């Protein structure tokens, strides 16, 4: 199990033990698992998926940020995060993330794409 800690500039969003987390790294998606080599990467907009036994348990949209991996800790510093369980193709335009991303066309496009057809299901 790896300790996944998701932090926004305002507060700690959650912190829990997970088997695996898939993150949208700047140069491609990667999976955070225990004993990954120490690693720092920025994030591109995309889906963050918490997985166990090849199944997605929880799924989020992140608008960007940073991730730091070492041993059994995975710290994700996010700009904006939205649980995908709360949004669907009809209401995502009302979400806080959508309003915050106003003007950022690429991120909004990715958000729409992730909501309608997440890469990890």
């Amino acid at each position: 199990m790896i300790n996944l800690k998701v932090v926004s500039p305002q507060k700690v969003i959650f912190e829990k033990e997970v088997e695996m987390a898939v993150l949208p790294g700047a140069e491609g998606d990667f999976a955070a698992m225990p004993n990954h080599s120490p690693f720092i990467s920025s994030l591109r907009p995309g889906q963050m998926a918490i997985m166990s036994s090849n199944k997605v348990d929880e799924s989020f949209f992140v608008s960007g940020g940073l991730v730091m991996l070492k041993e059994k800790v995975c710290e994700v510093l996010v700009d904006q995060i939205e649980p995908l369980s709360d949004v669907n193709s009809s209401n995502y335009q009302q979400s806080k993330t959508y309003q915050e991303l106003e003007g950022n066309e690429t991120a909004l496009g990715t958000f729409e794409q992730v909501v309608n057809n997440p890469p990890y299901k």
Partner: protein
Amino acid sequence: MPNLKELKNRISSVKSTRKITSAMKMVAASKLRRAQELAESSRVYADSLSFILSSLAGNTKNSTDLPEILTGRENSKISLLIINSSDRGLCGGFNSNLFRNAKKWISDQQGQGKSVKIMTVGKKASSFYKKTDLDIVASFEDLNSNDRQIQVSEEIKNKIMELFENNEIDEVSILFNKFVSAISQEPTYQSLIPLSNEETSEDESDANNAIFEFEPDKNELLEYLVPRNFLTQIYRSVLESSASEHAARMTSMDNATRNAGDMIDRLTLTYNRTRQAFITKELIEIISGAEAV
């Protein structure tokens, strides 16, 4: 002899002042709790960010590889000071302490042959520095909600990045009242450009132990990190300053309430004495009148 009616009015006016100050104290106390929570919960992000930044900077042995915006320019001529004041008064020495401190800092900088520019946050600072002949590059007011605090931090960050790139400033420091405890706040400077060393050295041993891989490469990461770091540091100082403001207001309003209580006691004593003196005088008049008959 004091006038009875006048005294009575005085007492009632001091009583209503006491009501106001004690209400303000209560409001400040509850706001302080919220501001403190905010300041504490934002600390996690700031700490992680500065850890990442220091492991990045620590990994680059040759400091010339680092961008100017981290290390500062060699011949720095112009310093920018961001002053975090409050929007409202009635908070004791909160603002005047800050301004006194800033004045010293400014004359120090000028002594070193640098020119100083000012950026003000809060109405008090902007009205204070308008009267001086210092160069004010920007003023921000009405930081009354958390959303607004975030927005202002963002604007400040954009402004300093822009000024730095246009070579209009070489150094940036931020001055704010650091929240030490509910009864003590301390004017504190933090250097943004160049990046203050305290923060890097704190985690240095730790950061150097783990050798991180970086993706994308360091320079691209720094491009993302540096503005983030500014934003976080500015946001943090704004939050600290707001917690300090409420703490300062709470203490000063507590004092004011107590002073008003003392004043009421003293005035009531005078009032009773005066009233008694009137009664005694009247009695003497009656008695001496009766004796004369």
